[in-house]
């Protein structure tokens, strides 16, 4: 194995609780204030994204106060304090936060975020069981490495493949 020791680096900084909570809080505020009508779609990351911005729109509590007329973002919210409880999923855990926003003349004057992180294990603790990490893996062409077989995601069967083909053809129609 090629393992070149360099300066140690944080193992997985993107999974720090604070980061996830902050991002979710921002999304929650957007939802409350109604100034970002596409927030719930934007929250759904595409495959391959890193996890820090992940907050599940499905899991977000329905207590948000976006009203029907709010899609223009033109305001019209009553002054007051709005609170939304929500859970969001990191890839490894389900976190619960509460976002309280104070609105005055459609301006957010105060935001309070309280979290209830349920993540059990610290990065340091995790590190005991991980032997090494590489930021980049250099793939090699399978034809060049003389292997007898390959292991990855399970090969799919006819049934699944047929279903995918059906979806593709429907999408193209």
């Amino acid at each position, binding site marked *: 194995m090629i393992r070149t020791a360099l300066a140690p680096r944080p193992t997985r900084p993107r999974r720090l609780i604070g980061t996830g909570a902050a991002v979710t809080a921002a999304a929650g505020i957007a939802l409350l204030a109604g100034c970002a009508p596409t927030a719930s779609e934007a929250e759904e990351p595409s495959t391959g994204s890193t996890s820090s911005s992940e907050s599940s729109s499905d899991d977000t509590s329905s207590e948000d106060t976006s009203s029907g007329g709010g899609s223009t973002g033109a305001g019209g919210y009553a002054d007051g304090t709005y609170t939304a409880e929500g859970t969001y999923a990191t890839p490894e855990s389900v976190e619960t936060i509460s976002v309280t926003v104070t609105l005055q003349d459609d301006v957010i004057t105060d935001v309070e975020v309280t979290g209830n992180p349920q993540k059990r*294990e610290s990065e340091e603790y995790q590190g005991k069981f991980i032997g090494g990490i590489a930021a980049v893996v250099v793939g090699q062409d399978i034809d060049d490495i003389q292997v007898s077989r390959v292991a990855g995601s399970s090969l799919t069967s006819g049934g699944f493949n047929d279903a995918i083909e059906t979806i593709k053809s429907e999408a193209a129609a």
Partner: protein
Amino acid sequence: MAAAAASWRFEAIGTAWEVVTDEPLPAAVRDAVNAVVDGFDRDWSRFRPDSVVSALADAGGAVAAPADAAAMLEAFASLEAATGGAVNPLVGASLDSLGYDASYSLHDRGARPAPADWRERLTWHDGRLSLSGPGTIDVGALGKGRLVDPVLEVVAAASPGDVVIDAGGDLAVRGRPQRIGLEHPFDTRRAIGVWEVGDAALCASAVNRRSWPSATGTTLHHVLDARTGQPVRAYAATWAVAADAMTADAVATALFFDGGPRLAHEWGVEWVRMTTDGSVEWSAGCRADLFLGADSVER
């Protein structure tokens, strides 16, 4: 290099199998393998209406426990504990809801968490498997590995020499070590490393093949976090080597979550995993030969 080995291919439990032996397997041995595979499928497949788990799905009930029930469900209990509930044998309805259902509708009806109290709902003792109320058992977290083990047993008992059981990427090897490429989850023509495995099992799990579009156009796949019913997003592929395939398969599943490395450590399993942003981690002492960049860090 030995003379060309005999290869027997078939499709079962939703994947392509290959059994490689030094000499062609007699028909009686193939029949015995088919019986093992079919028995497992009839017990555990949620994709067939006449299976034991399908019979329990609508309203629950109690049945004579299938042969593999205790071993698999006890392993599930360990997986649940290790992953904080992310792995759950009642995740079938969550998969159904995303469209990974018996008819492969691939119609996304939204994320649905699996019941966190599955150990109260699903019990196995005194030879009975009981499910209180409706629920869809899905043993995908380790079931394929579980089936590879008895298939290897049947084949190896009848076939001296080297044996490879390859269940579409979950492998058990007896005899001469095999060089196995670790398929790059984002480019299946490439490998991120090679693992030489003899007299052991290597199980892989990755999110790239069993994937389909969600209602909003994003990509769904079949590795779910049972707590949310959502596909996992942090890891793209995992590989684990253990003495038996069920253990390797179970750890390969656990590695999609934070608790995986610890469970692997407890069970003495070597592993490699790749995140969705392309970095790779491995266990201490892992013997896989990985094609790494220059900035890797050995702990």
